[in-house]
């Protein structure tokens, strides 16, 4: 129902959330000033905004490095997961052999392997992309495996009656059946990819929001910390929105979207 609403109605729908947000910001601003909270503990929102404006060049440069890793990792992780799901669809043996490995990968805490990947892949882009990809991989794999198999049994029987090849059945049926599931996973993993990239930057990187956060942390620069956090959040929201746009374009038929 939400999609059909006019922009005005949607703005009206967002009003309560916006009002609450403003109220919190105002309370924060005046609370900090009223109780004289030192800036290194909790800077007022205006100071954070000023920092973001003043260091915009620094923030954007580091954000670029982080988001590049996040997006690349997201694409690689998602793409690899979908490919593997297709392999599983046609080879039970591959599924039995590889699925335990996939689950094992899932149980490894990424923070624990981040330093290892830095040792193996160096201080550049590669370890960040790897972490982001690993994070995106599992939820998409599980959903894609499920989605590819959700085609209605009678629709599959109809393809069989037609004598359709595997490729034809895939192109006309399974692909579309899987898309809603893949997108449901992609929406979640797109934001997790950014977190993955930042975590990778904690353990060793030259640039990125993660390095900014580590440096600001050493310097007890709360204002910079907040500026970095807010900048990466905004970028994450933008990425999520892009994925949602892609979803809208790909899930063109009614009632396609699922909530997982």
């Amino acid at each position: 129902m939400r999609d059909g609403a006019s922009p005005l109605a949607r703005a009206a729908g967002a009003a309560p959330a916006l009002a609450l947000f403003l109220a919190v910001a105002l309370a924060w601003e005046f609370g900090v000033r009223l109780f004289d909270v030192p800036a290194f503990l909790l800077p007022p929102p205006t100071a954070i905004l000023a920092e973001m404006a003043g260091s915009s060049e620094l923030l954007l440069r580091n954000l670029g490095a982080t988001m590049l890793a996040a997006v690349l990792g997201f694409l690689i992780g998602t793409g690899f997961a979908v490919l593997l799901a297709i392999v599983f669809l046609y080879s039970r043996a591959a599924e039995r052999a590889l699925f335990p490995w996939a689950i094992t990968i899932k149980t490894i805490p990424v923070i624990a392997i981040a330093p290892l990947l830095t040792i193996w892949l160096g201080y550049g882009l590669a370890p960040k992309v790897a972490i982001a990809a690993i994070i995106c991989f599992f939820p998409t794999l599980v959903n894609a495996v499920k989605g590819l198999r959700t085609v209605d049994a009678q629709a599959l029987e109809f393809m069989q009656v037609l004598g359709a090849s595997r490729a034809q059945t895939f192109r006309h049926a399974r692909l579309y059946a899987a898309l809603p599931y893949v997108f449901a996973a992609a929406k979640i993993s797109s934001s997790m990819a950014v977190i993955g990239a930042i975590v990778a930057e904690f353990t060793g990187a030259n640039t990125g929001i993660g390095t900014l956060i580590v440096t600001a942390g050493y310097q007890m620069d709360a204002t910079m910390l907040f500026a970095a956090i807010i900048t990466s959040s905004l970028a994450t929201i933008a990425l999520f929105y892009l994925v949602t746009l892609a979803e809208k374009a790909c899930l063109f038929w009614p009632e396609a979207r699922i909530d997982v």
Partner: protein
Amino acid sequence: MNAGSARPLDPALGKAAAPPVIEIDGVSVRFDSAQGPVDALSDINLGIAAGSFTSIIGRSGCGKSTLLRAITGLIRPTSGSVQVQGQSSADYQRTRRFGFVFQGDSLFPWKTAAGNVEMPMEVVQGMPRAARRKRAEELLRLVRLDGFEDHYPAQLSGGMRQRVSIARALSYEPEILMMDEPFGALDEFTRREMHDEVIRIWRSRPLTVLFVTHSLSEALYLSDRIVVMAPRPGRVKAVIEVETPRPLDPSARTSAAYLRQMTELEALLDA
């Protein structure tokens, strides 16, 4: 139990004018489930004459859908054999295709009405896009759905979706059409309209129809023969020749002969 022998429950075998296009010989289907084996079909013997309209009626679970699946080769009979035009279903499938209207919905939600009807033409015949579209429009007109070509299944009513299924089944010009309760979701009015529609389609081309239904009056109105099935195990109880098939006249539903056959059928189903 050879193919030629007429069985007591099947007096019509061999009596039809045309040679049988489908010969079902001692077909049994057993499903193994966790609750133990289910005899969905037990020793079915039937001959279906080319160009005939045969209805299959019987209680829910008596194996009607299973019989259609066994004929089309979607499931392999546990024993017995099915011959279609003198070949096994699998061999028949190599060159020809069965038309199939499934019980319930089997349209692709991501394809429009026209897209769903076009799909078999692409898969089976590799027909080019423009020709496909033109033919899909013709077929949708045939089932009275002109103007709904670009609607998705979710935007159509249950009865409209079933009519798309019928257009889709006809799109690749099958000689044999299986219809599994195609009008289950229709109200009585649309249902009667569709009956005359189906008869019109059946008359307009060389088509053998196997039609599963729960409705006695539907079976009587449409078919040359009615196969009455009984459950546990799924078997043929009787085969009835319809005295006045396809009257194309609603008042025929109240004629003496019609009502007599109706009573006969009800007695068979209750027995």
